[in-house]
């Protein structure tokens, strides 16, 4: 719902001679669905409101108890009225609805068997619900030609029933421009002007929003199975730090293909993703199926002949898991006896439990975050700011209700897309508030949108143009330093009693605009400030924090907030990876890769050294020359990894690690919410969670003779506890005991043996098919399902099937509701939080007042003259900046090549041309990029694509003019 969910007045209504208490102010359709009545609808969507387009939800409204005939009304357009009498089952309403669906179906193309929506189709459900079973229409069917909409979405226009949901979502909700309703009367066509990729980053939601199969998931279609054949479990998206809840679907392949993950769909979480996911989250799952996936342990060949032909990359061959564990165990045994040093490198995209197991193995002093100095410092800073009692991290509904949003530097449309979608809704909050004053309910979508010209103040300060520019009331393009100045002046304006406030010197920001901004900020009751690590500027984060503190002070002083929670300023700080903030809890700021590199350079230990890298690519964090030095300086590299990367190419031993949907663990999102993801499927090959490899090896090392004789007590105790862990929940409890911040992990989810009325939760739906045939090619006797040691869930159909009975059940299904619209059956009312326990616990971080320290500032500018050097600004792309999603085939096919964006005058100055390859060199490293030109980037700044597979790390903050040269053709 778009409306605030505060304490609401109740209304008593009568439906089919029974009385009900429902929330007042909602529409009748929403009320009927809250009462779990089966009332068909198409155009209404809880997040999009009502427009009354499809006429499917007709019910009869009676004037009073004596009225026998009543009048037909569209329930989605009718506000519930206290004392009103309605009928869903009245013959007039039923006949009307049957007639509507019969009309909608006249042109439907008789292709359900070959439609990807079949089996989870809202249209199928509603047709059945309305009772239309026999086609009477004898005329010809209207047909349309389809369009090519890119590698993600398939278009099959003939299935359309013209409910307009797609354009209402795509244009009105997500701000897309390239999909529209074309044609007229019964020939309306939903498509683009011409074939081409849908360019909005939320286009994937069309698959779920469309009630039938006009828009279907193309990647899913390539390895398609019906919804009832997908086993699923609650998971958390691993492609950014927002922490959207997902329901990945997987099915074992009948031919022994290891690629089991089939698709990702949205799992409703009221506070985070609501009904929608971004395209990186939806289509990025394919990395788990990519050709680069590691399925078996691999060891580097030691013959020098082969090695020399392969360069620094090693040639690997598979070995059995037992041998691999034995090899790792030897290393650990040597570490135990003091004959070897093992350095663990943790991961910001892996779970807390995996990192903790690694830390337990190597000891806290030998544990390093798999991040460079700059990134880790930023994360620690985010952590410190979030601990301040004056700020809090807003959830999505709070952002959507904000009456002012200030985006400082972070390109959230590309680094935290779901937050950008929420900000986009915030842009309408003023409109909705005005509608409320006019007594127009928020769900009256079309009426509310008639109030044009009323927009929520939205300041977007960015390095380059962003996808939020179209809704920004004030756009500023500036270097981070200028944004810092802007934020500080705004903070000053809030705190200062009076006096002149001067607009900072930023091109394009005039005094009038600035004064208006200050005034809006002073008026705002619920402002939200958004920033993040994207620009890699600590100054900027601190400035955002100072502005937030000023807002909090202003709120307290002027609005006299009674609730202390209300008085806190909403500050959203976006982090780069799914568990960035979690990793930051486990290590100090100095435990970074640059520090490790410096230590390795300076000190020379007599013992041999092993680098144990877990789910991290050193070459993504460090410039290649530094990473090379780090790798060359150790005797052995052992890597636990999901997909092959440049670090694994140099590893002596590679162990196949589970991808997020394959194991259970805890991730901490940007808002400091610890969420657990569960294993959706068993994983192929010898894949297992990283911590299990480590625990197995620790146990094996204990059995090696002589290992117990020497070594210190503490190491020994650590390894023993690691070897004893059998369930991931044991690690969570140990984590909760070791780190006070992580104490909530102990209460995060059901323990592995905690069943509900003796039942586990089934991962497979009760209609799962092919149980006795799918494996029969290899062995006709059925395999026993694998047990799950981590969660009370079964890799079979046995157990709880309904999401209302178990919080672990992610299959969105209810009797009569096969599509994802079934979600309302698990909500007290449409749009409200799911029934039962919603996953996620905020970290228990102690409140500490934040003092910004200038010492932790950004790297100083080397030269005083700006015309000599260039400021490097990291730029992000939804497709291209995600480490794992870059391995997804469909995403890789639309990713640009790495680029550098110049201001036209700078380009001229450097005598380069757009479209030309350029090379940037810095102390032995060379980056080859495609030169692009943009007049929106500030002068003396180069925007460099960040996180792209070919060149993940970027040069330092400043480079000299000489470092830029034309590149190879």
């Amino acid at each position, binding site marked *: 719902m778009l409306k605030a969910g505060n304490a609401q007045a109740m209304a008593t209504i009568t439906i089919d001679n029974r009385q009900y208490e429902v929330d007042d102010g909602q529409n009748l359709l929403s009320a009927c669905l809250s009462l779990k009545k089966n009332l068909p609808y198409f155009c209404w969507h809880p997040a999009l409101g009502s427009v009354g387009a499809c006429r499917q939800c007709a019910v009869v409204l009676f004037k009073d108890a004596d009225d026998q005939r009543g009048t037909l009304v569209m329930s989605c357009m009718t506000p519930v009225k206290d004392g009103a009498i309605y009928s869903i089952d009245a013959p007039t309403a039923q006949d009307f609805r049957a007639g509507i669906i019969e009309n909608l179906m006249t042109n439907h193309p008789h292709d*359900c068997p070959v439609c990807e929506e079949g089996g989870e189709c809202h249209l199928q459900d509603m047709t059945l619900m309305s009772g239309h079973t026999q086609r009477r229409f004898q005329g010809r069917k209207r047909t349309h030609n389809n369009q090519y909409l890119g590698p993600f979405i398939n278009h099959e226009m003939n299935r359309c029933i013209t409910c307009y949901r797609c354009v209402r979502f795509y244009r009105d909700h997500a701000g897309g421009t390239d999909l529209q309703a074309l044609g007229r009367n019964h020939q309306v066509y939903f498509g683009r002007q011409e074939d081409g990729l849908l360019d909005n980053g939320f286009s994937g939601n069309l698959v779920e929003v469309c009630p039938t199969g006009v828009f279907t998931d193309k990647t899913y279609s390539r390895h398609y199975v019906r919804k009832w054949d997908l086993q699923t479990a609650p998971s958390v998206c691993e492609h950014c730090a927002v922490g959207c809840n997902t329901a990945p679907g997987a099915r074992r392949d*009948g*031919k022994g293909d290891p690629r089991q993950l089939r698709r990702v769909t949205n799992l409703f979480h009221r506070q985070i993703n609501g009904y929608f996911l971004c395209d990186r989250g939806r289509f990025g799952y394919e990395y788990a199926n990519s050709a680069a996936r590691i399925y078996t342990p691999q060891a580097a060949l030691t013959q020098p002949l082969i090695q020399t032909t392969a360069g620094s990359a090693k040639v690997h061959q598979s070995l059995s898991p037992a041998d691999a564990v034995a090899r790792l165990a030897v290393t650990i045994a040597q570490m135990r006896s003091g004959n070897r040093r093992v350095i663990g490198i943790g991961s910001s995209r892996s779970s807390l439990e995996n990192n903790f197991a690694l830390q337990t193995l190597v000891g806290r002093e030998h544990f390093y975050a798999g991040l460079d100095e700059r990134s880790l410092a930023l994360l620690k800073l985010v952590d410190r700011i979030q601990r301040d009692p004056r700020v809090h991290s807003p959830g999505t509904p709070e952002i959507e209700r904000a009456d002012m949003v200030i985006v400082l530097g972070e390109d959230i449309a590309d680094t935290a897309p779901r937050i950008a979608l929420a900000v986009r809704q915030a842009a309408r909050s003023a409109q909705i508030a005005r509608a409320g004053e006019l007594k127009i309910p928020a769900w009256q979508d079309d009426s509310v949108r008639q109030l044009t010209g009323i927009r929520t103040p939205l300041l977007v300060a960015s390095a380059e143009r962003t996808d939020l520019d179209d809704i920004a009331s004030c756009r500023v393009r500036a270097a981070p330093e200028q944004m810092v100045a802007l934020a500080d002046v705004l903070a000053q304006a809030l705190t200062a009693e009076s006096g002149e406030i001067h607009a900072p010197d930023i091109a394009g920001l005039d005094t009038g605009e600035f004064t208006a901004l200050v005034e809006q900020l002073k008026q705002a009751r619920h402002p939200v400030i958004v920033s993040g690590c994207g620009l890699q500027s600590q100054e900027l984060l601190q400035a955002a924090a100072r502005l937030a503190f000023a807002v909090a002070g202003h709120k307290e002083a002027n609005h006299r907030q009674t609730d202390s929670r209300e008085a806190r300023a909403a500050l959203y700080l976006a982090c780069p990876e799914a568990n960035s903030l979690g990793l930051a809890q486990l290590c100090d700021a100095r435990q970074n890769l640059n520090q490790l590199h410096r230590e390795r350079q300076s000190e020379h230990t007599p013992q041999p050294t092993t680098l144990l890298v877990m789910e991290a690519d050193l070459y993504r964090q460090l410039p290649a020359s530094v990473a090379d030095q780090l790798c060359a300086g150790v005797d052995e590299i052992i890597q636990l990894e999901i997909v092959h990367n440049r670090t694994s190419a140099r590893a002596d031993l590679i162990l196949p690690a589970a991808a997020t949907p394959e194991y259970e663990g805890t991730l901490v999102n940007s808002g400091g919410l610890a969420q657990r993801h569960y294993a959706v499927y068993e994983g192929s090959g010898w894949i297992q969670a990283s911590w299990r490899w480590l625990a197995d090896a620790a146990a094996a090392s204990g059995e090696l003779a002589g290992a117990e004789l020497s070594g210190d007590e503490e190491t020994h105790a650590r390894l023993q506890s690691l070897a004893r862990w059998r369930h991931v929940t044991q690690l969570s409890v140990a984590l909760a005991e070791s780190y006070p911040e992580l104490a909530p992990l102990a209460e995060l989810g059901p323990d592995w043996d905690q069943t509900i009325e003796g039942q586990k939760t089934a991962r497979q739906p009760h209609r799962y098919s092919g149980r006795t045939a799918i494996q029969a090619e290899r062995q006709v006797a059925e395999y026993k399902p694998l047990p799950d040691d981590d969660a009370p869930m079964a890799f079979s159909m046995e157990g709880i099937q309904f999401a209302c009975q178990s919080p672990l059940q992610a299959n969105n299904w209810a009797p009569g509701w096969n599509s994802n619209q079934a979600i309302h059956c698990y909500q007290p009312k449409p749009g409200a939080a799911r029934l039962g326990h919603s996953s996620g616990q905020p970290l228990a971080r102690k409140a500490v007042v934040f003092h910004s320290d200038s010492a932790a500032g950004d790297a100083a500018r080397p030269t005083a003259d700006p015309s000599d050097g260039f400021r490097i600004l990291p730029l992000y792309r939804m497709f291209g900046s995600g480490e794992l999603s870059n391995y997804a085939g469909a995403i890789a096919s639309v990713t640009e090549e790495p680029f550098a964006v110049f201001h036209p005058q700078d380009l001229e100055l450097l005598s380069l041309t757009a479209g030309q390859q350029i090379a940037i060199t810095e102390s032995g490293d060379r980056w080859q990029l495609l030169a692009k030109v943009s007049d929106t980037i500030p002068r003396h700044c180069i925007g460099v694509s960040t996180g792209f597979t070919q060149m993940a790390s970027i040069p330092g903050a400043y480079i000299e003019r000489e470092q830029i040269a034309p590149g190879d053709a």
Partner: protein
Amino acid sequence: MISILRSLWLVFRHLFTRRVTVEYPEEMPYLAPRYRGRIVLTRDPDGDERCVACNLCAVACPPDCISLQKMEDADGRWRPEFFRINFSRCIMCGLCEDACPTYAIQLTPDFEMCEYDRQNMVYEKEDLLINGPGKYHEYSFYRHAGKTVSGKAKGEAAGEAKPVNVKSLNL
């Protein structure tokens, strides 16, 4: 007492009635064309596989002994990449045939399919596919369905009008 004697007499009289047993291997019984025996996959009148890998047979199957995987060919048709029936589990109930929207899966009057090795009861698509339309000679799903396949563009299926040109002014 009388009833006991009467039943004795009635049963005794059966000594002189005809036996109903058909002595099977020597004498083949007549099985109706709709007898529910071995399952086959049929082809449409043009000789193409009828199965469109919709998975309805698999979900209808009570012992879950049908498994298949959809793939899409260059001609736009959906086909099963593999189609497997584990006949050692099959109960010949015919629900798969009822569920099939394209008449692809059909049960035949052949039931002589015993094996010494249970593994040999697993039939793949190659074993199931026959070279004919089975009981339904005329039906071809793709002639009716609106999905475009090679040789049938939009608007060419049964009962379809020519595609609308959205950019035309004569809507």
